[in-house]
């Protein structure tokens, strides 16, 4: 009897030791936690370090803990945390469909309700960012701005016999396909993409549709997602054909269907296994190795998304990457509000720029007037965002189910599992289009 009791006791002691050693002890100080998914982007890390330093000086007794996750592990962390009621005080949410899935849970404070007018002015056009708005309210505050396009190794492109096109004059899809043979000689892929995530397919698709629209507005993708226009028309069909053509021509490796973008495709591009990578600007300016991104040897250049055909208008994807929200069940929401307001202020914008991050608060500072920095990629990003010679293309939409269907459709078309007509008809069904075709 004794032996059993001793056993049971020691086992339970062992258990409780390890269990309770992970409970957070009550602290005297106030500790705010911030998390985002920009792991690997030192520029953002440094910007926030400075924000935190200034904020902590202003508020003694408050400590801020900032953690960066990678995009893939962030979801695994955030969802259970929100479900368990232990989410951080401020957390970033990926704009668009992810935000739309999160808002109904009531985990975020509707920022547009608590923002003052000066704050809204600072944000400028970022205040109307589609990806941060659900049901007419702004739920997260954009932090950094970005222009999404393709980036290339200039030397590799020229080795394949193509000159780097000037900004505003992109090549067509067919030109990219012509690159496949010369690239193969060198053992390179033309484009490195990872189709497990939306970036490599949906973002380019949206760009192509916007190329084919009559003008900047109305946003045809938005109309289609809302079921106001039919998917079964050329403006939506031609981009799908472009994808199919490129996949068949091996513009990207067949493995790309099963690769994720941020780790595998990006890693392979850093290894110079391919000429192009589609990419955002902000985190690229921060995470590109110095050997390729220094003033003496700017070997990297920008490349717009390819034109669907010669009649299309060049378009740029623009948006806001990191967007911070306030946890509605957090205990120190006033402090959080002050912190985020600070990041959107002119002073905050200056700190961002100093760390080579394009600030979202376009109303707080005119970025076209900032002097050239010694980070060539950052300079390109600023140039693109402030003086785009083409059409602006939105690429964050909040209709989750519809986006899922589009994403699945593009992949199935590439793999030949469904015809384009089937996919477009299915999209009509999912988006609830009830009119004539």
């Amino acid at each position, binding site marked *: *009897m004794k*032996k*059993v009791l001793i*056993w*049971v006791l020691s*086992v339970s002691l*062992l*258990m409780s030791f*390890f*269990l309770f050693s*992970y409970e957070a002890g009550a602290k005297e100080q106030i500790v705010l936690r911030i998390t985002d998914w920009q*792991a*690997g982007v030192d520029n953002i890390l440094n910007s926030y370090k400075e924000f935190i330093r200034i904020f902590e000086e202003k508020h003694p007794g408050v400590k801020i803990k900032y953690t960066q996750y*990678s995009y*893939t*592990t962030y979801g*695994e*962390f955030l969802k*259970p*945390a929100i*479900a*368990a009621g232990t989410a951080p005080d401020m957390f970033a949410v990926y704009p668009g469909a992810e935000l739309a899935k999160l808002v109904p849970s009531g985990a975020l404070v509707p920022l547009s309700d608590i923002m003052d007018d000066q704050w809204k002015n600072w944000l400028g056009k970022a205040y109307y960012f589609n990806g941060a708005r659900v049901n007419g309210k702004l739920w997260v505050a954009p932090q950094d701005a970005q222009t999404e396009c393709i980036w290339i190794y200039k030397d590799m492109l020229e080795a394949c016999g193509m000159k780097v096109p000037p900004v505003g004059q992109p090549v067509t899809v067919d030109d990219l396909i012509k690159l496949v043979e010369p690239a193969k000689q060198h053992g390179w892929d033309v484009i490195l993409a990872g189709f497990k995530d939306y970036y490599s397919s949906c973002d380019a698709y949206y760009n192509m549709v916007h190329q084919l629209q009559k003008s900047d507005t109305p946003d045809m993708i938005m109309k289609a997602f809302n079921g106001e226009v039919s998917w079964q028309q050329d403006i939506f069909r031609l981009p799908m054909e472009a994808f199919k053509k490129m996949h068949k021509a091996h513009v990207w490796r067949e493995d790309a269907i099963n690769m994720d973008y941020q*780790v*595998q495709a*990006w*890693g*392979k591009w*850093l*290894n110079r296994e391919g000429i192009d990578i589609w990419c955002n600007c902000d985190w690229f300016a921060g995470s590109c190795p110095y050997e390729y991104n220094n003033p003496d040897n700017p070997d990297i250049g920008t490349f717009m998304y390819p034109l669907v055909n010669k009649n299309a208008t060049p378009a740029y994807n623009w948006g806001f990457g990191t967007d911070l929200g306030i946890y509605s069940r957090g205990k120190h929401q006033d402090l959080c509000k002050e912190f985020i307001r600070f990041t959107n202020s002119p002073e905050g914008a200056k700190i961002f720029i100093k760390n080579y991050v394009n600030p979202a608060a376009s109303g707080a500072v005119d970025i076209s007037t900032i002097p050239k920095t010694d980070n060539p990629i950052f300079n390109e990003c600023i140039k693109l965002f402030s003086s785009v010679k083409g059409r602006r293309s939105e690429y964050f939409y909040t209709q989750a189910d519809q986006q899922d269907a589009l994403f699945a459709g593009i992949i199935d078309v590439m793999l030949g599992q469904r015809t384009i007509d089937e996919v477009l008809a299915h999209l009509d069904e999912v988006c609830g289009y009830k009119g004539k075709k």
Partner: protein
Amino acid sequence: MKSKTLSYGIRKQRDFGFYIFSRIVIVITIVVILFPILYIFSVSLRTKDTLYKSKFYLIPEAITYQNYVDAFNYAKAHLDVSFFEMFRNSIICTGVSITIAIILSAFASFGFSNFRFRGKELIYTLIIATFAVPVQASLIPLFFINRDLGILNTYLAVILPYIGFTIPIATLILRSFFEQIPVEIKEAARVDGVSNFQMFLKIILPLSKPAIATCGILLFLETWNEFLFALIFLQNPKIQTFPVALAKIAGGKYLVPLGIYTASIMITVIPILIIFLIFQKWFISGVTLGAIKG
């Protein structure tokens, strides 16, 4: 020597064909079985220059342990958890769940083997049928149960399911073993007037050491390599077991260089390999015994 007497000889001339055939088959099988792990091992020993060389040779041209060191540092730097912590977590989760599962199953098996009562076989069948239920079916509800109990993201969140899912096998094995204990011993004990509990503790348990060892091995295999529950319930990197951490290293944040990738795999393979080499008889007999009783 056993195999010699049991196996069926090659005395006759026409068995020569079978001899050749069997040798070829087995050689191919062994090569297919061993080659992947040996390949990964040899790649993990390659130096940086020879790492990406296309030739698929097994004996590396130049050996270095650098990849293993890199893997350790990588884990500590990027994952917030070192390999040691990983293994410690696995040991805790497996150790605690096996211990408790065996204890509880021993109680239950004693109950089945020692008493007669109504509904005995029904309950027993129920317990054994649990073995067939796919563990994933209870994943979602368990997630919310854990969340509401506040134990999500702690060791308990994983230990409790492990116990639940290993009790059926343990009960199966232990019960058949208990029932094999000669009745005379039990009767002699009864005559001496021992209580049930004393009989359990002083007589049945000491005699059941081999069965408990078998249970231990089988349950160890089931829980040590478990991935899904650990993936979902253990979010805090500091308490993750090694399968989850390994998947994060090799399939995670950054494109991991080949050297670190293979070295991490080998780091998780080598300990279990050593344990297997030492205890191989136990593993194999455990598996067969467990199966035969089923």
